């Protein structure tokens, strides 16, 4: 079979050529003896194969059918088992992957929260540090920095808490640490909620007081408004401090203790306050760095409640 058309002869007799191709091959067939012979032989083979009859008896066929129909079908069970197994495996894999991802997200979201307890913020004014304990006895005094450092050192120690609160005001330019979170005191959720709200309100008050413009006409009205808010907060501050003391929550108690004199000073401002009096209170607020401490602790309490 040397002619290049012989392969197409096979497709031609099977009816697998397009009309154009079939015409082309048929035109070629007229003039090509070899292809004519090939075509004849292929058709001869076809007749030989088509004439093949199988020796199948009807009784054998019926017996086979009866046997097949009497066999129970197992399509649903088998198909379901395989399908269910595959789906179950896929679902289990998804659950495991989701759990791992969830755990990683949870961990990564918690890490910065813990770091907030060890909050990072620069103190704006170069004022020496003071402890709460010293402040009580000498509210306006500035203790030595060394003493403050000594009191800060054991705050991470597992030893029992000291008798006096250990809230230390940071030195100028130093990172300050929030109140340590361990061991957790036992306090009611209501008290914690109230404390968190109180911290928020106090923070707002102190920020507003810090921003009062002294040389403008509305200063008196602004101060009067802040004084009224401070009067409300003083009572609440006292109540919460006692509650925290009773519950043994040294951290909260210390912060409330350092907040209380500031609130009292604001509450006791005269109707027409002296600019210097306002300035002194502001300086105390800045020196104690009380605003960031309030913010950090209110956030921590709110998260603990969540």
């Amino acid at each position, binding site marked *: 079979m040397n002619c290049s058309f012989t392969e197409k002869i*096979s497709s031609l007799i099977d009816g697998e050529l397009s009309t154009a191709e079939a015409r082309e091959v048929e035109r070629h067939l007229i003039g090509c003896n070899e292809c004519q012979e090939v075509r004849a*032989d292929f058709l001869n083979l076809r007749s030989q194969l088509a004439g093949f009859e199988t020796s*199948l008896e009807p009784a054998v066929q019926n017996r*086979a*059918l009866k046997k097949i*129909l009497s066999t129970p079908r197992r399509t649903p069970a088998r198909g379901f088992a395989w399908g269910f197994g595959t789906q179950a495996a896929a679902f289990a894999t998804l659950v495991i992957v989701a759990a791992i991802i969830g755990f990683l997200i949870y961990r990564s979201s918690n890490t910065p929260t813990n770091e907030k307890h060890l909050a990072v913020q620069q103190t704006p004014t170069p004022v020496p540090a003071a402890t709460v304990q010293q402040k009580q006895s000498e509210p306006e005094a500035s203790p030595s920095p060394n003493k403050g450092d000594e009191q800060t050192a054991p705050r991470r120690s597992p030893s029992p808490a000291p008798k006096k609160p250990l809230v230390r005001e940071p030195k100028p330019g130093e990172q300050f640490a929030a109140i340590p979170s361990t061991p957790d005191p036992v306090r009611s959720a209501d008290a914690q909620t109230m404390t968190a709200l109180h911290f928020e309100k106090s923070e707002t008050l102190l920020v507003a007081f810090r921003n009062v413009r002294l040389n403008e006409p509305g200063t008196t009205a602004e101060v009067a408004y802040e004084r009224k808010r401070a009067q409300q907060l003083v009572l609440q501050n006292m109540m919460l401090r006692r509650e925290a003391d009773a519950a043994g929550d040294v951290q909260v108690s210390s912060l409330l203790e350092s907040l209380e004199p500031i609130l009292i000073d604001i509450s006791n401002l005269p109707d027409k306050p002296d600019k210097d009096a306002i300035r002194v209170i502001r300086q105390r607020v800045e020196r104690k760095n009380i605003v960031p401490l309030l913010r950090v602790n209110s956030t921590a309490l709110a998260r603990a409640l969540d």
Partner: protein
Amino acid sequence: MASEDEEFTMLFQDFYPSLCRFLECLLGGRAPLAQDLAQESFLQLHRTAWGTMPVGEARFWLYRVARNMAINEFRKSHTRYRLFDRVVETMRPRARNPEQEYETQERKTLVLEMLQTLPEDQRTALLLREHEQLSYREIGQVLNVSESKVKVDIFRARASLRERWARVSHVNPVNHVNPV
């Protein structure tokens, strides 16, 4: 369930003889084995796949399963090699058979045995085309190959059989068949 069984019975009555013939040609004329395999193919269809596919698909499915079973048989019994020996024996020149009534049977046997000399994929493609009148595309679906491979396989099978047929006819004139 009853209607499914009725449909299955109809398919079986229509298609079982064709499948037996296909398998018999594939297996070199071993009719009992072909019938067993055809029955086993239908049994598998009824037990595992019936009702999960259209009836038209079931036909292709049966060809595929039956062909796989036949291939397993080849592997088990080395049928190809034994049949090849028989083909050689058949092609050997011999004395004229005086009993003319067996002449047709002789040719049939010769065709079957010559088919066994073809590679399995060419043989299956040719049988599906010549016996079952499947198109190249349908054969490709059954065998899970491309349409162009089917075309080439069928052409090569025909060319190979034509060559062998010419050789046998030249050696043994009793086997010569005039073209239609």
